């Protein structure tokens, strides 16, 4: 086994453990911490996939900002009161997970992955390359993204701001 696949399997194992902890830990705050770990591991995985920019974004946006929101929701909802039996939902969730596995396993098992992965060049995934494609091929999505963010701002204020 070469170094690259060793690192991959190491990261993958840790990621699976962290994800399992998110599901199985009883304390919601601990679950959130396990989730941060999982997100950070994904960030490291992006580096091994030659996408350092995505790694930075993953840390900034997911492990940073979105986790802050998660913690706010947890504190907002007062988790102590939420401990309860998990019977029905667990059955339902397991069923969904099995369905997803049923779709994904055959996909992976056939293993006819593309011969030339998109990440072939050294510079792929660097901020420069990202900027180059973002501001040439994907200008329109970029501009629409600003509209999307504006709608999100208005929506956040409309739904969460206290009426005077």
């Amino acid at each position, binding site marked *: 086994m070469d170094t690259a696949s060793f690192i991959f399997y190491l990261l993958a194992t840790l990621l699976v453990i962290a994800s399992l902890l998110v599901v199985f830990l009883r304390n919601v705050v601990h679950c959130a911490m396990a989730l941060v770990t999982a997100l950070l591991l994904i960030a490291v995985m992006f*580096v091994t996939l030659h996408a*350092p*920019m995505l790694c*930075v*974004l993953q840390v*900034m*946006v997911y492990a*940073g*900002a*979105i986790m*802050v*929101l998660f913690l*706010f*929701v947890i*504190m*907002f909802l*007062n*988790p*102590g009161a939420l401990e309860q039996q998990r019977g029905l939902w667990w059955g339902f969730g397991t069923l969904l997970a099995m369905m997803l596995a049923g779709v994904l396993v055959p996909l992976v098992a056939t293993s006819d992955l593309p011969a030339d992965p998109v990440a072939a060049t050294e510079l792929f995934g660097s*901020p*420069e390359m*990202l*900027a*180059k494609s*973002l*501001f040439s091929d994907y*200008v329109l999505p*970029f*501009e629409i*993204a*600003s*509209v999307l*963010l*504006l709608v*999100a*701002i*208005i929506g*956040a*204020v409309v739904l*969460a*701001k*206290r009426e005077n």
Partner: protein
Amino acid sequence: MNHPFLPLLVMFAVASVIVVALLTVASLFGPKSTNAAKNDPFESGNPPTGDARIRFSVRFYLVAMLFLIFDLEVVFLYPWAIYFRHLGVFGLIQMGIFLVILTVGYVYVWKKGALEWD
């Protein structure tokens, strides 16, 4: 061994070694005594009152959400700033439109008083 991420790996390794070493040293040589007062949460010297898990005001949530949205805006600025010289005037116009649209959002948030804690 010229991988661009090698310094990063070294940094992580050194950091982990220092943390583990300090914890080990502290637990080996530190004085140990436990009593009830020591296990109390330390609230500026006052005796603790009430539950630590209180409900947070929904206003925090609005602030956090607005932070997240403007954080995402910054994410777009970062690659643009790096590549700015190659993009020229066209790049300036692109980012200008992007920022003008989001500035409308900023003005909106400001005028609606969503940034105020009333």
